[in-house]
């Protein structure tokens, strides 16, 4: 997972304790949570721009679907294969 690292103050971290480095455990957890959320949002935006050639879905073993009516006389038996 890519991480965002920057020269900024994360939520839950005051300017004062950021300077002194005195962040208690709870605040550190909050900050890490916020950081993770930022990473997720970043990746979410990135992945949303990267579509492939065509959508893909597969239900069980079925690779063919010929509608709800009975299949024609050619390939396939029943309406799924």
């Amino acid at each position, binding site marked *: 997972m890519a991480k965002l690292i920057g020269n900024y103050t994360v939520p839950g971290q005051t300017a004062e304790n950021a300077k002194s480095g005195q962040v208690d455990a709870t605040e550190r957890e909050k900050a890490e949570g916020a950081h993770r959320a930022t990473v997720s949002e970043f990746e979410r935006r990135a992945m949303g721009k990267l579509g*492939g050639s065509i*959508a893909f879905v597969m239900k069980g073993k079925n690779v063919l679907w010929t509608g709800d009516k009975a299949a024609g006389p050619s390939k396939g038996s029943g309406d799924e*294969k």
Partner: protein
Amino acid sequence: MKSSMDQACLDLVAQATFQKTAEIGFAHAQLNLPYMKQTVLDLPPTSPEKGTSAISMAAGPSLHRRETIQKIKQLNYRGTLVVADGAMGHCLRNGVIPDYVVCVDPHPTWIIRWFGDPDLAKRADDDYFRRQDLDPALNTKERERNDELISLVNEHGPKIKVIMATCVAPNVVARCREAGMPLYWWNPICDDYDKPDSHTRRLYDLTGMPCMVTGGNGGASAWIFANAILEKSPVAFVGMDLGYAPGTPLAKTQYYHELIKIYPEDRLSEAYIEVYNPHLKETWYTDPTYYWYRQCFLDVVKQSGWTAYNCTEGGTLVGEGIEWMALDHFIKEQQRSFQLSAIS
């Protein structure tokens, strides 16, 4: 680079693909409707001389790196050859005429390039083909190569059956018809057809064409078609790297332009995923979309129960149900079993 991509990210690529292709694909299907005369279920059986095996071909870098076409020619492979549209030009330039070409991507201007684009001079400049090694022949002298491909497709097209998804751009359909290529239609399964508002169901209701699982791209669709419609066995695949060879510059990767808009240049590599190939003892890398293709294909293999013979001799596609095999070994095995069946 990362060592994997989590399910949430894979889902996002899947959603992005659906959003990018569903509506335009439906609009294309409406325009293609008058030409849907035959379906993939109407295909005549392959001749007995072809035997039972097939090779499906995608246009990944190993096609060129491993001289796949040359091996197919030298070993005189007589089985069925099913190619993704992106690999057809490479076959024709090397004197190999595939039996089938599978076309599924609804992109409005890129796909016609694989058939020779009569309107290339009128199109906005686009480095999609130049910056990647899908087909190095298109990296230089684009106009001359395009003209050459137009001639080759016009000459050999009538012998190649096009396995045409209903969503493909109408300019591709027109080009195939102009070249005298017989069209056999199918709908891509894009979502859950059992849901009343399903896009796949909507496509089916519009066209009446049978629906087939795609695997996310033309190469995977070609392999699925060979198994599901032609009922070939065994089916090998070649040129399906779904990744980039060690040392390939990031700028030569297929989704570089999209990724560089999102990631700062000095951290671009964080968008990519490394995949160790134990057969090659090499670490290849891939981008999020190709990694999604890879996962789609692994899912198809696992769920279908079909064995996939990976004769690419490169790439990232290793996993359950995939047998890694040298192409010459696969071909020789098929020739031998065919001769034995002819004797008995």
